[in-house]
């Protein structure tokens, strides 16, 4: 069995991404969609760190990963605030019910 290399990280990242994508596409619950988005973001983080470790010699990848985490925190805050707003207006967080902008 070979030592753990770049490919292993990329496979993990792909699995996480697909799980997130699946979650986003199938959930009708707004919170579930937000969770899926978090998974997608973290799969991107794994990619950054893996490429940073195995390709270049500098810390650019790590820097971007920190930015993404920060961005994810902000996104979660705003997303949850929107979800709360939706719940107050529609008394549900089912995204299929919030189609009043449709003509």
């Amino acid at each position, binding site marked *: 069995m070979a030592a753990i290399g770049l490919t292993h990280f990329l496979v993990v990242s792909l699995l996480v991404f697909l799980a997130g*994508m699946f979650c*986003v*596409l199938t959930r*009708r619950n707004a919170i579930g*969609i937000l969770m899926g988005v978090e998974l997608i973001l973290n799969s991107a983080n794994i990619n950054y760190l893996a490429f940073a470790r195995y390709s270049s010699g500098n810390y650019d990848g790590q820097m971007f990963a920190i930015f993404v985490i920060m961005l994810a925190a902000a996104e979660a805050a705003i997303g949850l605030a929107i979800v709360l707003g939706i719940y107050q207006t529609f008394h549900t967080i089912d*995204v*299929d019910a*919030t*189609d*009043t*902008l*449709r*003509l």
Partner: protein
Amino acid sequence: MHEMTHEAITAVSYLRWVVLLPLLGAVVNGLGGAWIQKRFGKGAISFLACTPVLGAFAFAVAGFLHLRSMPAESRVLLDHLFAWIHVGSLNVDVAFQLDPLSAVMILIVTGVGGLIHIYSTGYMHDDPAYWRFFAYLNLFTFAMLTLVLGDNMLLMFVGWEGVGLCSYALIGFWYSEWANASAGSKAFIVNRVGDFGFMLGTFLLFWSLSDAGHPTLVFREIVDYVPLIEGYQFGGFAAVTVITLLMFVGATGKSAQIPLFVWLPDAMAGPTPVSALIHAATMVTAGVYMIARLSALFVLAPATLDVIAVIGAATALFAATIGTTQNDIKKVLAYSTVSQLGFMFIAMGAGAFAVGVFHLMTHAFFKACLFLGSGSVIHAMHHEQDMRKMGGLKKWMPQTYWTFVISTLAIAGIPFFSGFISKDEILWKAYSSGHTFVWLAGLCAAALTAFYMFRLVYMTFEGECRADHHTQEHIHESPLSMTAPLMILAFLAATAGVLNWPHALFGGSAFSNWLAPVLEHGGAHDAHATVHAGGEHAVETIEYALMVVSVAIALAGIFVARAVYGTKTLSPDTVADLAGGKIYRTVYNKYYVDELYEATVVNGTLALTRLSAWFDSNIIDGIVNGSALVVRMVSWVNGQFDKYVVDGMVNGVASATSFFGGRVRRLQTGSINAYLYVIVLAVIGAMVAQVL
């Protein structure tokens, strides 16, 4: 001669105040009168109105004394204000000229005018538009003074029109009654006819003088240069004859002679002081003044002088006959004024200009007194003017009565009153210049004058009072402000004759001598010479004989009036019924002259109006409506193009957008999952496309 005249002129600067003071009064009262009357009362208005006229009188007296102190041949004062019109060869200045003739006129205008102003403060006292009356009266005084003091034809014309305007405004002073307003319009329109003649005459005169190389409208220069145009012709007639006839047309309008006299009797609609000032003493004499002023021109046209004499005599007689039948006290005096103006024109026509101007002056005194006396009566009778409802008034109004009688004696030609001196002189001049028929007509008019004036006195002041009981109780003598002017005027009416006491009565004809430097001596002079051929003694005999005849005939008129209206030995009805009453009715209805004008001039004008209206409504309106129709059709086509082509394109774009928008709208589902699917599929599609 031209140069000489100019050297003889003395320049002064006070003459302008004679003219400007009344203007100042008119402006102050005209613009601020309503406020002043409300704030300070009618006394302030009276003060503001009378002071300028009395001030002007003071300046007039000063000017007169100044003239008297100068040698007779150079008696001209000139007050040059400013250059007015200087265009090409036409040079007209605003300048006032005082010479013996205008001195007489301004003394009459400001003197008699001042008395009438004072009288008006009493007569108009209860009128709410008190200030307006005095503003007009001052404006009239200003215009009349401009007329007589202006040193050229144009300035005279300004005054000429100005007095016409004020006359119009004052005749219609009580304009809320239709009859008064229309009387004002009638006066103005009839005067316009005359003014047209006057203007044409002025133009022709200027034209002729320009042809002669001396374009001028200044009186002093006209006098010098008119001999140059004596031989000129207009359409086969002598130019001077055409010019003077046109100017005489103007005089017939302003001075109410045949055929333009019709406005003056109607002008009695105005307040009585106005009748006295404008329609007896001053404005109506403007025509006489104008002829005297241009006497140098008129003597060159003997044919015109004959026309003037005949028209004057006809008017004198004609108006006197109407005067005998009228029952309105002011109408009698109005026709009397027309008749007396006729006498003045007889004098003018006979070439005796000074005598005519003298009659103008004495007439101003006694006729102003008569009118103001009648005003006093009307005031006492609560604006009753019908003499049939008067009678016996001397009991209540002794001062009015006596002043009235004195003036009546003057106008009737009773010896040694002013009217006798002036009228007798006119008749003598008419006779001695060979106008025998004119003299005869004048004599008859004089007899009728004596008759109708005493008829007036008997009907108004003598006998029993025929007014109703209520009116009788309120009859009273007028206040001092009204009786004082009456007394002064009556005094002048009685004594003014001494100013021109004739040679035949051992006088000096001072008035005629005073005017001699200004006036020409026309036909009378030559004819006088022919009478003179019989010897000095024979002339005097004839003059005495004529004097006796005219006195006798005046007395006859008075006795007839006394017999009919005083002692009633002769019933007026028997006189009226002569010839089946037809004569009486014709005269009573003023010979139907108004009806004649109504039928010809007025209806002719109305017919022309109707023709114009028809032309307007059918031809002009047809053209207008036709062009409107064409425009409407063009714009209809335009509208259709706009509606279907232009709007169609705009609407087409809009509906196409709407159609495609409706299709594309389906994409917007509002479902987040659907959007995500699209995004993912698109990304996958893009990646696949990249790889391939």
